[in-house]
């Protein structure tokens, strides 16, 4: 917040047009803002803090795993570290990351609206998130929690001696932030599109956020109920999940994954939307298969609700239920495959510029492909028996969450950074950072596929000596990856004061958000834009630019 403030004061006030950043000053103007763009900045600040905290937990885990013995931290500490790494990264970083930062900033701009449908609810969402963060921080300071981010019963309700209640309560609260954000996007997309902006002229990012919002609205309440039941059992000993109290522990897994598998799509769908925007812009070509990409988003959102049981193949669930969940898990893979092929085809006969966001796109497609294909290994019920609960699963979902979602988030942050701040980031350093992230990521997580097949179980503080070499490689990769994440934090903050000023449309991109100044004025558009063409008509734009040269 401080830095944005500095940005507003940086250039001479005389030449500066009024925009959302310099329209008002002071801490109150930020904490009581109902401007979607400022709320996006509020989210950006707190999720960056959360990402750093979660990253430090990961760093401690990786250092501990350098040796097979438990020599850096105690077993209990290790268990708390991986639990809090998961809780912070999933509930406080990945789920809000693209929707709450880029979605908040861009959805109204992309559809030609002045704000979201419910600006005050939007601010309320941020405060609910912050309340959840307060409980989460309390849980960490009060000693941490050791159940794993999955809170499996009866360990979480009857055995763990740690801060289960405050952590679960934090996740419960932050869920409402997610629900309200989803509600806001859905209503906004239905009711506030500019004249002429039909559903099939919408940017694919908006489609992706819309599909994500549907999941947030429909799945998150189930998580809330599940967590309340967990609290009732732990706090009041009402038997729901613990068999010693007459409950069923596997019921918890069904309820938990009914939310948490769709939550995987809450994390990756917005990233797919970001990639769709960028791949077409930097290929200077209309995206290949617009309709296939937007329907595949909806397909993923719907089928994604029916695959939760693939987390329970060895839990004692019925064999026939397992087979059905395996089949449905294969079906949900098809829309993702369709997207990958359409992005690849978009490059064909394009005019590709290797700018930083495009490097993230290329990295995303490669890593997401590996993440998705290894998901097919785990969906195969007979193979999952060997692979589940090993490092193979860890590697698989980090390829999706880190190789996919975070690569897309970083790419999107660079792509829209000129729009958000009015400044250009340093291209050289950004390219270096993107390359470091790509290399560090692969070195960190690829060895974990091999560790998993070798049979190293996840959540192991102490491990058998034959697993050490691959663990050392993974830790070495993680230290490279850490540098790759630190660099953007440094140069992006630097660019807010010292970066060259950005024009309204530095990438010559289509899309309404580029037709208003950078940074945009508080009310977004001076005149309500009217849309008369399909999205991503880069050829027409290219011809127009060619003539004007």
């Amino acid at each position, binding site marked *: 917040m401080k830095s944005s403030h500095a940005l507003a004061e940086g250039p001479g006030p005389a030449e500066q047009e009024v925009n959302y950043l310099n329209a008002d000053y002071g801490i109150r103007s930020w904490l009581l803002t109902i401007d979607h763009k400022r709320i996006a900045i509020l989210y950006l600040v707190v999720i960056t803090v959360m990402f750093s905290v979660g990253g430090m937990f990961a760093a401690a885990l990786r250092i501990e795993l350098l040796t097979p013995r438990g020599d850096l931290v105690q*077993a209990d500490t290790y*268990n708390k570290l991986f639990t809090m790494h998961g809780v912070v990264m999933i509930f406080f970083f990945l789920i809000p990351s693209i929707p709450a930062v880029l979605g908040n900033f861009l959805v109204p701009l992309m559809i030609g609206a002045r704000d979201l449908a419910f600006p005050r609810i939007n601010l309320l969402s941020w405060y609910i998130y912050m309340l959840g963060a307060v409980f989460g921080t309390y849980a960490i300071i009060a000693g941490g929690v050791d159940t794993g981010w999955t809170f*499996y019963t*009866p*360990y979480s309700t*009857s*055995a763990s001696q740690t801060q289960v209640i405050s952590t679960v309560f934090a996740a419960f609260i932050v869920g409402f932030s997610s629900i309200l954000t989803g509600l806001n996007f859905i209503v906004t997309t239905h009711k506030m599109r500019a004249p002429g902006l039909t559903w099939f002229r919408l940017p694919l990012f908006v489609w992706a956020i819309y599909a994500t919002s549907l999941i947030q609205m429909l799945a998150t309440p189930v998580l809330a109920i599940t967590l309340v039941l967990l609290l009732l059992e732990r706090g009041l000993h009402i038997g729901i999940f613990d*068999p*010693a109290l*007459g409950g069923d*522990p596997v019921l918890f897994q069904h309820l938990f994954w009914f939310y948490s598998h769709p939550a995987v799509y809450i994390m990756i769908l917005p990233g797919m939307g970001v990639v769709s925007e960028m791949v077409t812009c930097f290929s200077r*070509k*209309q*995206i290949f*298969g*617009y309709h296939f990409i937007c329907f595949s988003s909806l397909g993923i959102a719907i089928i994604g609700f029916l695959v939760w049981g693939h987390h329970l*193949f*060895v839990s*004692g669930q019925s*064999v026939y239920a*397992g087979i059905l969940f395996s089949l449905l898990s*294969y079906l949900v893979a*098809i829309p993702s495959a369709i997207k*990958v*092929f359409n992005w*690849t*085809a978009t*490059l*064909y*006969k*394009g*005019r*590709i510029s*290797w700018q930083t966001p495009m490097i993230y796109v290329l990295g995303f*497609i*490669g890593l997401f*492909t590996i993440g998705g294909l*290894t998901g*097919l*290994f785990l*969906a*195969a019920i*007979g*193979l*999952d*028996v*060997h692979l*589940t*609960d090993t490092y193979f699963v860890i590697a698989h979902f980090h390829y999706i969450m880190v190789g996919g979602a975070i690569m897309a988030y970083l790419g999107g942050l660079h792509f829209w950074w000129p729009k958000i701040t009015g400044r250009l980031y340093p291209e050289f350093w950004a390219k270096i950072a993107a390359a470091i992230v790509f290399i560090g990521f692969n070195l960190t997580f690829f060895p974990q596929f*091999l560790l998993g*097949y*070798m*049979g190293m179980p996840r*959540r192991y503080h*102490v*491990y*058998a000596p034959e697993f050490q070499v691959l663990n050392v490689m993974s830790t070495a990769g993680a230290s490279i990856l850490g540098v790759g994440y630190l660099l953007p934090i440094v140069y992006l903050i630097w660019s807010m004061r010292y970066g060259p000023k950005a024009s309204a449309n530095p990438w010559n991109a289509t899309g309404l958000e580029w037709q208003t100044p950078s940074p945009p004025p508080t009310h977004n558009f001076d005149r309500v834009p009217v849309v008369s063409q399909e999205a991503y008509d880069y*050829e027409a734009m*290219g*011809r127009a630019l060619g003539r004007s040269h």
Partner: protein
Amino acid sequence: MEKLLFFVPDQASSVASSVDLFFFFMVAVSGFFSVLIALLILFFAIHYREGGPAAEKLRAQREEIEDPIAHGHGRGAMVLEIVWTVIPFGLAMVMFLWGTRLFFTLSRPPADAMQIYAVGKQWMWKFQHPEGVREINALHVPIGQNVRLTMSSEDVIHSFFVPAFRVKQDVVPGRFTQTWFRATRTGTFHLFCAEYCGTQHSGMIGTVTVLEPDDYEAWLAGGGTVAPGQTLAQMGERLFNERACNTCHLPSGEGRGPSLVGLLGSTVKLEGGGTAVADETYVRESILNPAAKIVAGFQPLMPTFQGQLSEEQIVELLAYMRSLGPKQGGATAAALGSEGRKP
């Protein structure tokens, strides 16, 4: 047998090589597509780079002619969309069927399997052989023999995982789960708990030792870890009498409780309609929470044994009931001495 590749664990069970074969099929298919996508995006991104000859040539052409396929329009593009939907779908169905077939093998213990009981608790594994031998954090099995493991937990969820056997099954409190394997190589292999279970989760490990049949018999005769002097079923029978179960559960069926002869695996009629399969989990529930399911024609008289029997004692009772055998055998016909190897 030499190791195939460093990351492939020992193939020490009857299913290991079929799991590995399927794994390498998956690696081949996904490797092919990963490399294909990577090469395509790199080729396109370099060949059509801005300012490069191909991109400039296209730019000049584009002033005059439109290329429908390049833009994702028209019949050609639709054919492409169908092709790259149908091919992945077909491959996915092959993977699904292959994986499911493998799972049927993994999840169905053969009828002739010998029965070993396992109990997980924070943070150790306890095994009980039918001959009465007990082990902790170690399991000895004979090579070439189908072994069925029936498992329960005293506290939280654990998971029995032997990478060399490609076998994993959660061990859940409040019910019995089962898995099976047939060891094909002698040696000692890792046993891991794969489901996070608290502080010493990574210390809840042990070994599975596969012995030649003669060595196994010798090991059993040596008493393993704890010498019992009695078979598991005999211990169960003693417990059955000590706890006065025998006063109501008469073999004739004329007692206050139903006869337990041939009960395991049969289907029972319940009071108020409906039926239940009397598997291990049913018996366990009937001991710990007798009022949950009342057999038709009987009164809910039985007291609960919740908190009064350990998991091991329940296992002993189960072994005794198993020894009571199928119905036609009669109450005392099941020879206690030889029951050990029966399913």
